Structure formats: structure tokens, C-alpha cells
């Protein structure tokens, strides 16, 4: 049961759930990060397949079947994003062992919007010619409350539940909101869930049209297409994902992964995809100040690092201007793709798992790095004990976030095994 007495203790992550192309659970994510299996292929889900004359989209889809704890009558009504969320939350919930917490003191923040757009596109296609037969349930299923509502109707979460959107920074913004909810005393435990962004074909085509999504040069070699911060990068590659983090005040008697000691979000005034290094740097400075750390204290950076030419270039400017040339840096999206709404959350999970493992995952396709003055993890894992990590996450619409993660103190037995 969480410590409710020391209300000044730092915020700890006591449970993690994850799903990525390698499968369900943290072990699958670890296997993806440190193994050598390629996860990238062509997108095949109904509602994502291209016409024969079009170039198929490269990406990563979750393996079927999706593990479930839902009864069949509920399961049948829930979309992909909701079913994956329940599975991921179930893992995080039980690891954090919060069954005995007063449900009224537990909150949930879901990150992401438009989470069911592939299934909505299929429904629009199915029912546009027979609107009289639309299942009544669509009246609530199209809302962005749907994923959170499935979670709260399955788990005893009765403090609050809401959904926040910050495009590709949604997972981190959900985490920042959950941190605030615990810090302020609104709840004792808050779960941040980066939900699966279930892209439709038209969403994919939109990303391709704007030039954000790769990758024409690697159309026949999908495993080479996701190459953030590397020469020949042409855009991000989508990867289905979802992750949940259970956040509560640190109790050194309870196992935890580490602490979240600072975090910030800065709006830069852009409507579209344009990145902004000044705002990225500002977010980092604010997060570090909150954590009581200096830039030289950071020994590992988990970048946003999508693989879009302008995004990578701008983020590299941020690293250089901040003086992050002594910290190890790697690119999680080179392995599991870009989960969009889920990206920030699953990448935070990846940082904690690397902290736990005592090694850093490799960067796929980093050959050669765009900026060799920085300390990249190469194409093989790197032994390193993370002490203080800085995670960046940015989103279309001018969102810039940075968050500081610290390893469990060496005093006391506290790290999840």
C-alpha cells in the first residue's frame, strides 16, 4: 500500500505495463530493446491496407491475439486501443500491487486523442449506406473518453479519469498530469497511460503527404526505414504501442523503478509539425531546475528522435545548445517505431527498464550518426548504470516536454527486480 504520510517524498514509478510490436508485457519490450529481432514490416490491419498501385506503409503492428481479462460480452464491444489499454494497465496495476488502495484515491490520465480512428473509418464505410443500422453503442464509442472509461469500468479507479492530448507528446503530458495529481494531493496513486494510436489509412496518407512519414528509399527494406538521427533519415515509421506507469509518493519499503523528479511542458505557438529548439531547451531547463539538477548531472538522454529531417536537426541543435555532449543518447523509435500518443509513455518505460538492466539499448540503423560530436549508443547495447536521465517528447501543435528520471537511491532495497 502506498505511503500516504510523507507528502514531500519524491514521485516514484511502482508499476509499468507495456505493449509493442514484440508482444505484450515488459519482458517483450526488453527483448525488443536488447535483442536483435527486426519488428518492422508492412501494415496489414483492415483499414490500413493500400490500394495495389500505392506504396504500402511500413510499420509495426502488435501481434494477435491480444491478451484480455475482459468478459466476452464486453470484449466484443471494445476497440483495439481499449483492449490493449486494459491489458497494459492490468500488468502495471498488479506489479504496483495497489489493490488495497482506496479506489477514491486512485486517478487515471489517458494520453492521446483520435485513438480509434481506424475503426471509425471502417464503421463510416460500413454504415454510410445504411445509417439506420448503426449500433447505438457508437454514440459513446467515438468519444475520446472511451479508452479511459473502459479502464475505469474494469479497474477500481474512482478518484478521477480524464484524457489529455498533446499529439506525440501525449504520453509524457499524461505523465506530467499524473505527477501533478499526486504532488497536489488530489490522489495518492495516479496512472499515466499512453494509449495506442490506431491509425487509419487516411491518417497514414496524411502523414505521408506532409512529408513526416518515411520512407520511400527503403520501401523494399522495411527494417532499414526507421533511422532517427542517422544519415538518410526520411521520416518517422509508425509502431503500435501502449504503456502505463503507476505513480505515487516514494516509499522505500515498496519496490519501484526510480523517481520522476522534474518535468515541464512549453507551448511554442506552432499549429503544425514545426519543431522549436528554443522551446525544447526551455522545457529541459525547467525540468532540470525542478529536479535540482544541472545539465552536467545528466548521464543519459532518451530523445524524441523520430527520424524526420527537420525534427532531428532541430533536436540535435537542442542537444548541442544544452551541452549534452557528455551524456549517452539513444533512439527508442529506431527499434519499436513511433507510437505517437503512446510514444512518450513507452519511452519512459524504456528508460526505467534500461536503468534496471544496467545497460542502454542500441540504435538501429545509426549508420552513420548525423552529428558525431554527440555520444550515441551505437548499434550494440552499451553497459551503463543510469543515474539521471532526461527524456524529451515533442508534439505537433507546438508541444515541447522534458522530464527527469532518477535511479532508485542506493540506500535501501527498492528497485524492482
Amino acid at each position, binding site marked *: 500500500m502506498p505511503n500516504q504520510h510523507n507528502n514531500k517524498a519524491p514521485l516514484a514509478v511502482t508499476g509499468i505495463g507495456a505493449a509493442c510490436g514484440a508482444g505484450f508485457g515488459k519482458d517483450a519490450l526488453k527483448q525488443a530493446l536488447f535483442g536483435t529481432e527486426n519488428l518492422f514490416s508492412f501494415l496489414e490491419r483492415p483499414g490500413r491496407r493500400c490500394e495495389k498501385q500505392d506504396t504500402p506503409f511500413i510499420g509495426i503492428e502488435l501481434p494477435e491475439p491480444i491478451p484480455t481479462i475482459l468478459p466476452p460480452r464486453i470484449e466484443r*464491444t471494445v476497440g483495439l486501443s481499449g483492449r490493449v489499454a486494459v491489458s497494459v494497465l492490468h500488468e502495471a496495476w498488479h506489479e504496483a500491487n495497489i489493490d488495497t488502495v482506496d479506489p477514491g484515491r486512485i486517478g487515471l490520465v489517458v494520453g492521446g486523442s483520435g485513438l480509434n480512428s481506424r475503426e471509425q473509418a471502417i464503421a463510416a464505410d460500413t454504415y454510410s449506406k445504411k445509417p*439506420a443500422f448503426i449500433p447505438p453503442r457508437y454514440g459513446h464509442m467515438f468519444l475520446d473518453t472511451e479508452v479511459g472509461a473502459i479502464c475505469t469500468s474494469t479497474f477500481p479507479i474512482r478518484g478521477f479519469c480524464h484524457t489529455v492530448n498533446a499529439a506525440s507528446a501525449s504520453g509524457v503530458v499524461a505523465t506530467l498530469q499524473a505527477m501533478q495529481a499526486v504532488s497536489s494531493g488530489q490522489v495518492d496513486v495516479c496512472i499515466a497511460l499512453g494509449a495506442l494510436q490506431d491509425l487509419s489509412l487516411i491518417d497514414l496518407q496524411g502523414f505521408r503527404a506532409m512529408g513526416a512519414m518515411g520512407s520511400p528509399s527503403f520501401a523494399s527494406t522495411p527494417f532499414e526505414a526507421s533511422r532517427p538521427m542517422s544519415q538518410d533519415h526520411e521520416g518517422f515509421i509508425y509502431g503500435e504501442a501502449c504503456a502505463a506507469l503507476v505513480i505515487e509518493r516514494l516509499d522505500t519499503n515498496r519496490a519501484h523503478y526510480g523517481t520522476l523528479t522534474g518535468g515541464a511542458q512549453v507551448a511554442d505557438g506552432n499549429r503544425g509539425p514545426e519543431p522549436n529548439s528554443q522551446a525544447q531547451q526551455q522545457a529541459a531547463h525547467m525540468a532540470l531546475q525542478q529536479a535540482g539538477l544541472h545539465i552536467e548531472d545528466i548521464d543519459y538522454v532518451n530523445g524524441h528522435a523520430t527520424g524526420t529531417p527537420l525534427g532531428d536537426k532541430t533536436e540535435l541543435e537542442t542537444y548541442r545548445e544544452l551541452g549534452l555532449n557528455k551524456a549517452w543518447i539513444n533512439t527508442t523509435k529506431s527499434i519499436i517505431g513511433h507510437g505517437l500518443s503512446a510514444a512518450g509513455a513507452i519511452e519512459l518505460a524504456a528508460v526505467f527498464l534500461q536503468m534496471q538492466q544496467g545497460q542502454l539499448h542500441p540504435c538501429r540503423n545509426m549508420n552513420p550518426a548525423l552529428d558525431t560530436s554527440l555520444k550515441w549508443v551505437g548499434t550494440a547495447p552499451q553497459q551503463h548504470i543510469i543515474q539521471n536521465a532526461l527524456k524529451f517528447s515533442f508534439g505537433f501543435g507546438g508541444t515541447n516536454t522534458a522530464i527527469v528520471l532518477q535511479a532508485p537511491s542506493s540506500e535501501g532495497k527498492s528497485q524492482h527486480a
Partner: protein
Amino acid sequence: MDSNAIFQILINEIRSIIPELEDHPIARGDAMADLGVNSMERGDILVSTLEAIELEVPMTQLFGPRNLGELADLIHAKSAQQ
């Protein structure tokens, strides 16, 4: 299609939407609420039944029946009008 055939379609849709009722006997005198079917599920069952027999009637015209037999009779009557 007579009322009994429509009743059989209703049963099929109930069991499709609520797999937990697969082996549960369902009679014309049963009300869906008494079988544990909630309001959203009742809506799904009704619409999928109407779709199965290709009958377009406003849902508001199907309020009133007290059990599945009366519902089958009402759907049959609406069907006969078209």
C-alpha cells in the same frame, strides 16, 4: 417471415452479442432486462435484428413490448406494413 422466425433471429443476436447466454434457454415470455441484458446491449440486439431482416423503422416505434415474444410480434407487424 412470421413472428417465430423473428423471435429466432432475436435469440441468435442475443447469443452473438452476449456469448455468456449461449447455453441459456430463452423463451418468448422472457424480457431481455431479466436475462441481464443492459440497455446498450438491448439497442445493439434490436438494431442487428432489424439489419438481419432489412427492416428500417425508427427505434422509437419499437418501444413498449414487455417481453421477446411481444417484441417479435411488433417487429413482424412493422415488417408486414412495408
